[in-house]
């Protein structure tokens, strides 16, 4: 068992394609780290470099204390679960699981003992003599897991191991893998494009975009404090609503965010926590509201009038436990390259309206809500949990940056040129 350290790992394919840029991660011994991001973000390439299936163009990779950049896969002491499972079709389940141990010339009774222990914990005892083709998808997946755990490696690498399972089995297997990983306490690096898997399984989650690491944090922090627009939009389902807004200071000292013709008073608690907001008064920024912070005002009539939005209900998806309400509101959608990419990844690009004066807002209403299609709906917004992003660089706005520093413009995030509004930065704070 060992930790895994990536120090500015870079992968450049021929033709100057940068698949992974300067990826640095420090994965502790026994940690479950999830690499997540839209397709083509380099997460699989990163995993394959750790596995030794791809050459590392630059940077240093350590497993334990050993630099393994040039160590072949078989000597890295890792096990990998492939998306396709990659079971050996001509071998029985038993031989599939035992394959790695046999190659390492483990004693026969030791192999037998370990294979049976693994098979028992994966509920495969009855299938040991079968060939992979006689197994169901879930069983094949478990054989692939068994092949990994039986070796007792320093680290597990998993490349979307659940994506070939149907939805129900996926949820079940997700829990099983998480349980197994806790029991074995083996360092695990898990690649997925599914944020639910990422949030539910990972001790920490690393979000990647176009080969660059955006943020590494425990799931809750990722959700509560996304460092930029991309992470904010990627984590959470349905996605965070984003609008262009302007901050205004009221006579009583409270802050209001104007979006379109409407405005929201920010909760004083939030204003106190987000000291960085002071620099944006009178300037455009991007306001993010999670669907779960928006409720049908009829459900919560006590909500103050200055924390409400109005919109026309265009689509109503009743899920039993909640109602997913899609509304059109008068505001400018906070579109950036990032959000465009997210939409493309979700296959939504066709749905976005071209009218920049009308934005779509998604809210999670209580199932008791009586809203109907076409209705103008009054919604209350919990303004204690709003998110703010700088429109020029897409960075999240949290604490005030050190006095003489304008908000840093890190290489990691480059917001769109199109819809960003140029503005003097740090002029008054």
């Amino acid at each position, binding site marked *: 068992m060992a930790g895994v350290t990536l120090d500015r790992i870079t992968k450049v394919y021929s033709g100057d394609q940068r698949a992974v840029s300067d990826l640095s991660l420090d994965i502790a011994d026994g940690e479950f780290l999830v690499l997540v991001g839209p397709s083509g973000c380099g997460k699989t390439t990163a995993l394959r470099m750790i596995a*030794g*299936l791809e050459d590392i163009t630059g940077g240093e990779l350590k497993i334990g204390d050993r630099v393994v950049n040039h160590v072949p*896969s*078989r000597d890295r002491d*890792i*096990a*990998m679960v492939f998306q396709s499972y*990659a079971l*050996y079709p001509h071998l029985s389940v038993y031989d599939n699981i035992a394959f790695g141990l046999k*190659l390492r010339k483990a004693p026969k009774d030791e192999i037998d003992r370990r294979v049976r222990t693994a098979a028992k914990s994966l509920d495969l005892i009855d299938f040991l003599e079968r060939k992979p083709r006689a197994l169901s998808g879930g069983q094949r997946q478990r054989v692939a897991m068994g092949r990994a755990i039986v070796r007792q490696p320093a680290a597990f690498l998993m490349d979307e191991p659940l994506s070939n399972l149907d939805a129900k089995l996926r949820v079940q297997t997700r829990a099983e893998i998480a349980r197994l990983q806790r029991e074995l306490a083996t360092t695990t690096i898990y690649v997925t494009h599914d944020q639910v898997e990422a949030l539910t399984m990972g001790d920490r989650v690393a979000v990647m975009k176009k080969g660059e690491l955006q943020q590494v944090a425990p799931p809750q922090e990722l959700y509560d404090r996304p460092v930029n627009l991309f992470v904010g939009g990627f984590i959470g389902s349905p996605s965070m609503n984003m609008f262009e807004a302007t901050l205004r200071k009221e006579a009583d000292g409270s802050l209001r965010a104007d979006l379109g013709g409407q405005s929201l008073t920010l909760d004083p608690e939030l204003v106190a926590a987000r000291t960085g907001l002071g620099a944006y008064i009178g300037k455009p920024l991007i306001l993010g509201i999670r669907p779960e912070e928006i409720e049908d005002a009829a459900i919560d009539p006590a909500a103050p009038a200055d924390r409400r939005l109005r919109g026309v209900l265009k689509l109503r998806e009743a899920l039993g436990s909640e109602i997913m309400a899609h509304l059109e509101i008068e505001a400018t959608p906070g579109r950036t390259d990032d959000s465009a990419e997210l939409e493309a990844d979700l296959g939504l690009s066709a749905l976005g309206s071209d009218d920049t004066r009308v934005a779509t807002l998604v809210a999670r209403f209580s199932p008791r809500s009586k809203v109907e299609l076409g209705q103008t709906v009054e919604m209350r917004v919990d303004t204690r949990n709003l998110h703010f992003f700088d429109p020029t660089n897409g960075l999240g706005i949290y604490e005030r940056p050190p006095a003489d520093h304008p908000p840093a413009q890190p290489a990691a995030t480059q917001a769109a040129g199109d819809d960003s509004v140029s503005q003097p930065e740090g002029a008054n704070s």
Partner: protein
Amino acid sequence: MTTASADQPVPSTKPAPAAAAPKKDGFATKIGRWTRRAPLQIFLMLVALAWLVPTLGLFFTSLLPADLISQEGWWKVVSDPSVATFANYRAVFDNEALVSSLWVTLQIAVGNTVLLVLVAALAGYAFAWLEFPGRDALFVVVIGLLVVPLQVALIPIFSIYNDAHLFDTVLGLILFHVAFGLPFGIFLMRNFFVGIPKDLLESARIDGASEITIFFKLMLPLALPAIASLAIFQFLWTWNDLIVALTFARDTKPITVEIFSQLRQFGTNIELIAPASFLSMIIPLVVFFAFQKSFANGLLAGSVK
């Protein structure tokens, strides 16, 4: 415009027969279908029969007693009382030259097949999965060699064999057959290996397998269908070879050459030639039928799965 108007009638005509067919799948349609297919099937049976006649004729002839062969027809074998006898076959096995030539043929056919399969599989694996400079160019050269007829090489290689003391040896014949079987063998094996999912190899590498282990423990077992078809092809081809052995051997005669040389220009020894020829035909047939199933699998391999 043109494509749109051309597409138009297709949906209207196509569904009609498709919808009609499953509805009335009664007796009449079955008869209709059979009569439509029957001419083709009868034709194929006739072709097969025509192909079999010489073989059957040879077989019946080989069963006739030596003194009757020149006077009587094959029907005497099935007439009552039958004159069929296996005496001719006994004579073949008593003929030392023929027996030893059968043995030589077996050595050549089996030896060159085993060697070819091994080399072709190794080379095919390398072409499919190992990275080395010039790999693709080299593979194109191998493909190019497919079109070289072996006749053009007979004389040059004859002279090489003379210098290398390979003339008139079983090894020389084996090497020649392997050399000319390799382009096709490599082509077949490489295309089979390429179809094996990459994940399998990577998984084996991570599991701790070296390239040699991957080849013998993973690739060869998976490639059995392809190997079977390649082996059958090569075995049949070299078993029936005449020209190569005729060129490169004087005393090391395989069965084809031996039968050829025992043919007398005038006086007939058909009572020996017939059973010997039949034997030389039946052995590859037995091999073919024994591996028929893997053979069919092998031809489908890569296209279906």
